């Protein structure tokens, strides 16, 4: 009798493996990403005195002016990124431009760095004492709203380029070849490739808009007033007014919800690109006599995004000697939380990403939550995280690097999750179904089939999460524990009052860490040689 009950319980437990796993991962995401929103809303509703003061602030024109200007400049950045990224993605992703893979890798690299490092590089090129500048005009142009928009557009254009190139490479070659038989490459590009890849361009524009609206470092460095900076300023020592900061997040919260609705309506299902039987093969459009010109245009566009490194390298010449005195614990404060968060995020991605691809109950809600947390300006999420965790009982978390890990898990879950969901959606469902038919329960299928089958996607998901956590400034700057500033925070703090060559050298150290991570990832992706 007892044995029978035990067997019965064991079977029930095995059947519940999948909902339990999804529930546990969902609970983690809810604690990390949803609670901050709940606390924000609850505290706004409670409306203590300081919130009332903040509401009075929203009654004046000033914050709305800055808010609308920030939204408008984010829109312009997104539009400019699309104008640069779509043609470049088309050239590098689907034509026979010479050295297109190398050009794409070089062009894409800056998107894994905090944009303010690139702003520093542009400053060392075109600032008053810059390598190629030295005039008031170039400096004034850089330190303006236009300069800020241009720097961000060049920093974020690789997001659109890369998404376009990936989408184009994922299109079934038969669709392209069927068109090539009947039409010239230009007609094929405009009538077949671009319409098929438009969800990628739309996703790119959407991501760039969200990143630009969250961007703190570039407007702060270029002395341009932005709404995110206004929220941040109210959490600093000089202008400390957390109630006002809380209320100022309200318009941005509305933008987040609008972005979420837009993503659900327009992009969500389309981000899984058009695949067919021959998706593993690649096909390129021959440019014929236009190939040399297209090669020059593509490489010029690709290298333009790398120009800031010339400025950084030039300014850093004398900075490396003093690096040891200034670097502190910045690198480990960046790498350790980023690695822990990336590992947690990859685990979440395997469970949630698979569930999204297989349309499991509850997965859509979790997907929406991760999108919401990513598109929400970091200042809003940061204020929410402070509301949740800054209390005596949770000081062991809030006072240590653990809060940074939580912040990363909240903000970046969408990136590895969507990466893994895409990989699962592209593979045949029969792999896992066959294992189920042979009696494997969820966890066994996950460990023995799903994980080995998608090992490369798991590496990609980890790497993407890791580099995005490394590049983060705008979330962590709000609540990093005292004495444990990550490298990005350390660089922007030193930029205000430290020696320029050292700041430039630190920026290059940061870029080198990211480059090393990407090279290690690329080595993991090397095609396997047949034995």
């Amino acid at each position, binding site marked *: 009798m007892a044995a029978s009950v035990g067997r019965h319980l064991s079977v029930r437990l095995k059947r519940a493996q999948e909902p339990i796993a999804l529930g546990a991962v969902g609970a983690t995401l809810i604690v990390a990403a949803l609670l901050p929103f709940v606390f924000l809303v609850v505290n706004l509703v409670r409306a203590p005195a300081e919130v009332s003061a903040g509401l009075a602030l929203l009654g004046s024109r000033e914050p709305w002016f800055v808010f609308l200007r920030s939204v408008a400049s984010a829109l312009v950045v997104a539009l400019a990124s699309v104008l640069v990224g779509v043609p470049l993605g088309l050239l590098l992703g689907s034509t026979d431009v010479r050295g297109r893979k190398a050009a794409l890798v070089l062009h894409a690299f800056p998107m894994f760095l905090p944009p303010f490092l690139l702003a520093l590089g542009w400053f060392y090129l075109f600032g008053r004492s810059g390598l190629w500048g030295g005039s008031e005009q170039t400096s004034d142009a850089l330190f303006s709203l236009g300069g800020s928009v241009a720097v961000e557009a060049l920093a974020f254009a690789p997001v659109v380029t890369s998404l376009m190139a990936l989408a184009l490479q994922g299109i*079934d070659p*038969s*669709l392209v*070849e*069927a*068109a*090539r*038989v*009947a*039409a*010239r490459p230009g*007609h094929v590009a405009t*009538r*077949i490739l671009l*319409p*098929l890849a438009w969800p990628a361009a739309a996703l790119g524009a959407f991501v760039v808009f969200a990143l630009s609206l969250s961007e703190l470092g570039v407007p702060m460095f270029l002395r341009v007033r932005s709404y995110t900076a206004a929220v941040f300023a109210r959490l600093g020592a000089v202008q400390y007014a957390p109630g006002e900061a809380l209320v100022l997040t309200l318009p941005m919260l509305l933008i987040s919800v609008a972005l979420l609705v837009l993503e659900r309506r327009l992009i969500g299902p389309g981000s899984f690109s*058009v695949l*067919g*039987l*021959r998706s593993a093969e690649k*096909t390129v459009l*021959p440019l*014929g006599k236009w190939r040399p010109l297209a090669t020059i245009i593509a490489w010029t566009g690709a290298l333009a995004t790398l120009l800031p490194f010339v400025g950084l390298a030039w300014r850093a010449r004398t900075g490396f000697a003093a690096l040891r005195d200034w670097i502190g614990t910045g690198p480990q404060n960046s790498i350790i939380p980023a690695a822990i968060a990336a590992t947690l995020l990859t685990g979440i991605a395997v469970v949630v990403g698979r569930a999204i691809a297989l349309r499991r109950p509850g997965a859509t809600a979790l997907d929406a939550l991760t999108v919401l947390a990513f598109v929400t300006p970091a200042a809003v999420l940061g204020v929410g995280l402070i509301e949740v965790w800054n209390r005596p009982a949770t000081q062991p978390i809030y006072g240590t690097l653990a809060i940074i890990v939580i912040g990363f898990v909240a903000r970046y879950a969408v990136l590895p999750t969507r990466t893994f969901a895409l990989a699962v959606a592209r593979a045949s469902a029969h792999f896992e179904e066959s294992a189920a038919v042979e009696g494997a329960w969820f966890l066994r299928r996950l460990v023995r089939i799903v994980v080995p089958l998608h090992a490369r996607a798991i590496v990609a998901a980890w790497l993407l999460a890791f580099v995005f956590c490394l590049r983060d400034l705008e979330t962590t700057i709000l609540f990093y524990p005292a004495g444990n500033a990550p490298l990005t925070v350390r660089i922007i703090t030193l930029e205000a009052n430290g020696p320029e060559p050292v700041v430039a050298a630190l920026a290059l150290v940061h870029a080198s860490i990211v480059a090393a991570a990407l090279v290690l990832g690329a080595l993991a992706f090397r095609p396997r040689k047949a034995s």
Partner: protein
Amino acid sequence: MTTPISVERLAFRRGTQDILSEVSLSIDAAEVVALLGPSGSGKSTLLRMVLGLVAPDRGLVRLDGEVVSADGRILRPPEERGLAIVFQDLALWPHLTVRGNLAFGLAAKHLPADDQNEQISRVLQRVSLQGKQDRYPANLSGGERQRVAIARALVLEPRALLLDEPLSNLDVPLKHELLSLLKEILRERRVTTVYVTHDLREGMQLAKRFAVLEAGRISQAGTLDELLASPATAFVRALREDLDRGRAGTSV
């Protein structure tokens, strides 16, 4: 009279693997040739060379006597070859309606809109798809999609039609129905056709002449009787045995 399609001593290598070696084949005007061969034998690569999507490392491709590809170079790009293809996966553009799929090639030829509409209507009627022109591929049945792919190829009035295992994923009744349709259309239009398949019985429905491609080489070519009378390889023997079994099954 010139030969619509001929390939001479074609060779193509990918890495260390020979995909095609010394492949020569001619197809006469209005002739239907079935290209048989096991998976991975190079059939699709040969078609893609004829289409101009891949350049041969060595050898020539001629269309109506004109050299269009030679020794690593594509001399005439695909869109200028006047050929049409139906792929195994059909490759219907999912973002275009049935009409959009058919109009794509006509628009690329700058045909006036009225002429486009007239040609599209005529071809859709021929494949019994009138009234479906505003549907997207996702909203069609498997058989209807197959008909759209055939219509898309025919609407261009190509000088030759290449069919790359277009019926391999269909159930038997649908396959028979579409084979009958194809047979009628090819007879009516007298269009030069290469029909790629690994199924001899399917090829027999449409073709009088057969070429067998194995490991990148033409191992045997001729009429059905010639193939069955003296099979040159184990693959052709297996085809004959399969055919014999089928006939025995039918007679029972």
